[in-house]
């Protein structure tokens, strides 16, 4: 105990135990490890991306490397239709995914928050896809969507649809197919976070509301939702950013195809840097993506008045 205390507290006042005398350095010591790690492995790489965005930088064409000014950005906004296409698809992808995930996640959390027989196992089963990786999700849905041995074959056996249908290679079905695959994994994320937050709603509030004769829906509307508000705002925002940046699933499931219709901006960037080795241009795209995300997030936080009531 004594040594534990010594680790956490700088030794300035040796015998004082009152918290009011907490040394001023303590909070800085506590955030130092996190701060240093993020400085070295997030802030510094970000700055170097900004730097490269102003360069021609392609390891396979070293003779062209050098300062490029705003050439990359000019090209991006004026001569690159792929940038706009992938940006529009990204927006559609994020809005649809996050909207559906929130809806189903909230409903699911409210259901498994009830008391019922089999709740433990029900929760475990329903939440389990959360733990599955993007790559594994792809593997599973590749098996399900396989045109020869996938689900369509058995549906065709029952007279639904045709043999040899491949939802992933048809431009009219690929979006729904990918959305469903990602929903399978994404809904539990919301359900878990919302369920965790539901645990901290004071039961007294519901009892009081009941005494006042509030209906179940009114209780949900006036107690549960306000309590969940901050959690919902934060988790939708984080999830939106996460879905925007989610390369694993689309890359392994469709590779951005067919005909590029499922290429998000980050996937386009990854292709530009990994396949084409055009790091300079990829950095410019990254910079633009970063600014767009930041702008949308600030607007979102402002509009939703995040944490408004608390402090």
């Amino acid at each position: 105990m004594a040594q534990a205390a010594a680790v956490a507290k700088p030794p300035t006042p040796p015998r004082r135990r009152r918290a009011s005398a907490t040394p001023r350095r303590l909070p800085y010591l506590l955030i130092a490890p996190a701060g240093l790690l993020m400085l070295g492995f997030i802030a510094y790489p970000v700055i170097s991306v900004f730097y490269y965005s102003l360069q021609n930088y392609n390891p396979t064409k070293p003779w062209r490397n050098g300062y490029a000014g705003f050439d990359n950005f000019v090209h991006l906004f004026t001569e690159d239709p792929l940038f706009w296409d992938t940006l529009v698809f990204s927006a559609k992808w994020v809005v649809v995914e996050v909207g559906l995930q929130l809806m189903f996640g909230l409903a699911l959390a409210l259901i498994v928050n009830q008391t019922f027989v089999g709740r433990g196992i029900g929760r475990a089963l329903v939440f389990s896809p959360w733990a599955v990786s993007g790559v594994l999700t792809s593997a599973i849905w590749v098996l399900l969507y396989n045109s020869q041995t996938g689900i369509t074959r058995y549906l065709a056996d029952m007279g639904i649809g045709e043999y040899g249908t491949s939802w992933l290679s048809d431009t009219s079905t690929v979006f729904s197919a990918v959305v469903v695959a990602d929903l399978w994994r994404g809904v539990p994320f919301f359900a878990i976070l919302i369920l965790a937050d539901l645990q901290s709603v004071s039961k007294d509030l519901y009892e009081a509301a009941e005494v006042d004769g509030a209906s179940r829906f009114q209780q949900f509307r006036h107690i549960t939702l306000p309590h969940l508000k901050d959690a919902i705002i934060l988790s939708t925002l984080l999830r939106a950013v996460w879905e925007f940046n989610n390369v694993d699933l689309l890359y392994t499931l469709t590779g951005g195809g067919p005909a590029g219709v499922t290429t998000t901006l980050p996937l386009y960037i990854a292709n530009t840097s990994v396949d084409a080795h055009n790091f300079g241009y990829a950095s410019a795209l990254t910079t633009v993506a970063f600014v767009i995300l930041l702008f949308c997030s600030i607007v979102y936080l402002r509009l939703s008045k995040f944490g408004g009531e608390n402090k």
Partner: protein
Amino acid sequence: MITKEASPAAPARHDSTPEPPSRPARKKHRAWDEVPRWHIYLPLGIYLLFTLIPFYWILLFALRPAGSTSLVPWPMTTVHFEKVWTDRAFGTFFQNSVLVGVATLLTTTLVALAGGYALARFDFRVKRVFMLALLCSQFVPGALLLVPLFEIFAGLQMINSLGSVIIAETVFQLPLSMILISNFIKNVPYSLEEAAWVDGCGRMRAFRVVVLPLLRPGLIAVGSFAFVHSWNHFLFALMFLNNQEKQTIPVGLNTLMSADSVDLGALAAGGIIAAVPVVIVFAFIQKWLITGFSAGAVKG
């Protein structure tokens, strides 16, 4: 769903305390028990089908012989597993993934707990800047920092060492973990800690004895996020580890999938191997979450 529950439950609520005919023991939480059972079981059942069919599908492919079209994995074979574990080096990948996952869990939880406590309980000069940095870092796509990160790790001589992946995973888990933990800590009334100080506890002891037990569900959530995320993530491992001896399971899975003619049986077996530890962790978490919740920790 919620709207539907409202109407049938409404009339019953008005006859309050005087002994309800059934279930007298549950009197206290009656409101939650009044939801008609089928409002729970029907949507849950439909959702369960959606959740479980894909799992069944991969099991089916992993257990039935290649070329079979039966919908029941019978006759059962383990040949796909043997092939993947030895020929495709999934045994080695498995070890590496466990190492990365456990190390990421420990570093993330410890560092985020320290930082989260500072954010929840203190006002200090750089706090706003730091919070802003945390939020901003969420908008930084880790996938897009691959090139500069690769250069940093090359400079540190850490390419091809699991350390690089552990650091990268920890760093990208930190911001969210720290925000979550600080929110969990904020939900623990400060007065509880102050009461412990009055009783003569130091800050560290008060934290350990009073706050930490209440944080258990939250910490388990954060720690399991970190483990599962690092277990699952493949871009960093793909980029920083180019020696097959060092690679992790998702990279192996990706290799199987990107082969010219995909061996569906091997892919399914590899997928099951990738899922097993996570499923075990998950079963464990469930138990702790539920006991943690029902121990009254959160009811207060």
